[in-house]
């Protein structure tokens, strides 16, 4: 069966510090991978998605970037965090036509 791992679960970082959130999927090949951000009481905002290694589509201009160095690994990064980067970050995967499955999320607080 397929599983998705996302870490860390919580993170407190100072303004201006770098960020690296990692997501890995097991039990499937060539998945679509997604990074979403959810502000308090809001829906899921799509940040990046990837249909293959090295293929990244950015949905929202911002202080973040994403990379897919391996088929089942998706990384969300920032060189310098802003206060506005605080939120709940979710990684997800799916196959070509189908429902997405989510990790448990990372609660990021920038102080």
């Amino acid at each position, binding site marked *: 069966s397929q599983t998705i791992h996302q870490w860390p679960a919580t993170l407190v970082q100072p303004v201006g510090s770098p960020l690296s959130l990692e997501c890995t999927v097991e039990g499937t090949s060539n998945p679509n991978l*997604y990074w*979403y951000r959810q502000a308090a009481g809001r*829906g*899921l905002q799509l940040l990046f998605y990837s249909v293959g290694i090295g293929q990244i589509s950015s949905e929202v201009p911002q202080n973040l970037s994403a990379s897919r160095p391996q088929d089942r690994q998706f990384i969300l990064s920032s060189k310098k965090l802003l206060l506005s980067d605080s939120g709940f970050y979710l990684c997800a995967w799916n196959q070509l*036509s189908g*429902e*997405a499955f*989510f990790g448990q*999320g990372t*609660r990021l607080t920038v102080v």
Partner: protein
Amino acid sequence: EDQVTQSPEALRLQEGESSSLNCSYTVSGLRGLFWYRQDPGKGPEFLFTLYSAGEEKEKERLKATLTKKESFLHITAPKPEDSATYLCAVQESNFMNRDDKIIFGKGTRLHILP
């Protein structure tokens, strides 16, 4: 303009009081519509996928239906444990390129009072 709009934003029901949540979408070609349940501090949990108008799916007290422009999540005789945020999402059909992104609505916060 939002491609996926959910209503109401929040809904409070008494235990046993049935109701429906709405999800309207504006994508030109629908590949799939998805319903999720999200508990506080957790990732969304998949409930249903609907592919074509007229399709219905059921799971316990929940039933999802789909028309050409909207979907409904019907909840029958809800219990307090059904309290959660319910999210709707769509995947657009795009034959020009492999554009598989899934777009979410803002969700409906459902609270069932005992």
